[in-house]
């Protein structure tokens, strides 16, 4: 088992491994045997994994452009063909800062990150800093020569929501042929390729065939993403989100596919409440295998194209004209001092019911703050689509309408 890096934590250390790729959290004794010394971090008794914030992000989601010609109807980033694109040197400075903060991995996105001609050089800079670089792309602009330059990435994830009408139903155009061409080119170049599938009311019924199709294309893993009311995704959110029956069947659907398909399955942070509510897996297993819920300020940091730190890629801000103020110090300090990250930590620290008594609370963190904000008027309320939250609400507010009848109020994530 190849150890790439270690990082001291209050509970011991995080060990980044390759072959297999993993982040392993270990206690102080094992950390010490691996050569880690915790210093001041280990002076107090170990808190175990229940730390409010790790010493730095484990992964960072770095937007390298706001440009994209695709025009997906539900684009969470509201990307356009003329969006802002930071200079190479600025992106590299941000990577320097993330490495200084102890970050293990960076996932590049946008906009369409893969259309930046210098993206492989940006990834090479990340590699040189000890960061593990990955990127998400729609596949636009991929050529054989470009795919070969993408060997610098540890993995490339290609967005693919289903074949033909299914893809079109999620993004407003049929980008499946473009995605599949990119998958083929990247595989021919020897790049590990994963796929991202957004779960919407229209794509959900086809998940099994989409997974089989992506497996047949040679994708090594499939990540499911909950549709979020962010960017243009707010406009059609109520029609796109999963309905009650789909949420109720989510855990069983995931378990069945996991048992029958060879492709590795992943879920995103916002889907954990649906799995938790399914009864398909115990909280101890979710905990032991590091399944993450809402992690901003604990393990996750996002960096916007304009250089500002953000809790996650879906978090919107009105201050889009703020100049790039990123410096090595500012990003490092953002992890400890940023008011929004502190608000995320404070919410996790004092979860309201029914999250406070939920056995999955330590992993889940209270569900998706983006969904809560869009539907509830403030991000600091339980995720209103979580099955446990809905059951709680039925007891305390029996008049609650089904999901498809509710409306989005205001924009509390600004």
């Amino acid at each position, binding site marked *: *088992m*190849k*150890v790439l890096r*270690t990082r001291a934590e209050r*509970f*011991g250390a995080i*060990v980044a491994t390759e*072959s*297999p*790729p993993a*982040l*392993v*959290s*270990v206690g102080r*004794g*094992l950390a010490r045997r691996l050569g880690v010394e915790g210093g001041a971090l280990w002076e107090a*008794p170990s808190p*175990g*994994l*229940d730390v409010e914030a790790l010493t730095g992000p484990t*992964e960072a*989601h770095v937007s390298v452009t706001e440009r994209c010609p695709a025009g997906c109807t539900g684009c*969470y980033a509201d990307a356009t063909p003329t969006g802002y694109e930071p200079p190479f040197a600025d992106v590299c400075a941000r990577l320097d800062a993330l490495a200084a903060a102890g970050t293990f991995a960076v*996932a*590049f996105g946008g906009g369409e*990150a893969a259309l930046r001609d210098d993206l492989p050089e940006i990834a090479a800079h990340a590699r040189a800093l000890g960061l593990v670089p*990955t*990127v*998400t792309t729609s596949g636009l602009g991929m050529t054989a020569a470009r795919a070969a330059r993408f060997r610098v990435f*540890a*993995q490339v994830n290609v967005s693919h929501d289903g074949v033909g009408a299914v893809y079109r139903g999620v993004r407003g155009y049929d980008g499946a042929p473009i995605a599949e061409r990119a998958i083929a080119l990247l595989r021919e170049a020897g790049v*590990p390729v*994963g796929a991202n599938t957004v779960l919407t009311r229209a794509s959900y019924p086809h998940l099994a065939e989409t997974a089989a199709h992506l497996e047949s294309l040679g994708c090594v*893993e499939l*990540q499911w*993403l909950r549709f*979020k009311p962010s960017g243009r995704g707010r406009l059609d959110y109520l029609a796109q989100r999963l309905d009650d029956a789909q949420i109720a069947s989510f855990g069983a659907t995931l*378990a069945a596919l*996991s048992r029958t398909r*060879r492709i*590795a*399955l*992943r*879920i*995103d*942070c*916002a889907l*954990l409440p649906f*799995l938790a509510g399914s009864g398909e897996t115990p909280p*101890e*297993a979710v*905990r*032991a*295998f*590091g*399944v*993450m819920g809402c992690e901003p300020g604990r*393990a996750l940091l996002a960096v916007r194209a304009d250089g500002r730190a953000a809790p*996650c*890629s879906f978090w919107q801000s009105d201050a889009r004209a703020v100049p790039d103020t990123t410096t090595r110090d500012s990003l490092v300090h953002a992890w400890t001092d940023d008011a929004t990250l502190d608000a995320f930590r404070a919410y996790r620290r004092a979860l309201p019911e029914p999250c406070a008594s939920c056995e999955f609370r330590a992993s889940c963190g209270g569900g998706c703050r983006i969904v809560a904000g869009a539907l509830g008027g403030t991000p600091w309320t339980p995720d209103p689509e979580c099955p446990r939250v809905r059951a709680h609400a039925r007891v305390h507010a029996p008049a609650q309408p089904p999901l498809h009848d509710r409306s989005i109020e205001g924009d509390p994530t600004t």
Partner: protein
Amino acid sequence: MRAVTDPAVTPHDDDVLCVHFGRSANCSSIGSVVDVLFVSGVVGTAVLASVAVLLGGARDGADGADDTGAASDAAVSNEPASEGAARDGAAPLARDGDAAP
């Protein structure tokens, strides 16, 4: 080494507390491999135990950066070691009924 079974219990110093498999290649939201959640508790515990043993082996190697090769891949793979290696360790996990080589 023991698996963590109760978040309220203070973990033992020599424990693997948790393992987050995969490369996290999505840029918009943090993701987690879930296949191992649906295997039996015995298999899940064995995976954690294997990681602890293999980490110890890594330290016994060259300055904490030893690659034990196919044996480490096999501990968490649902495929033969050679095929798993061809996939470059994309975080497949042992499942019920799959005999780890």
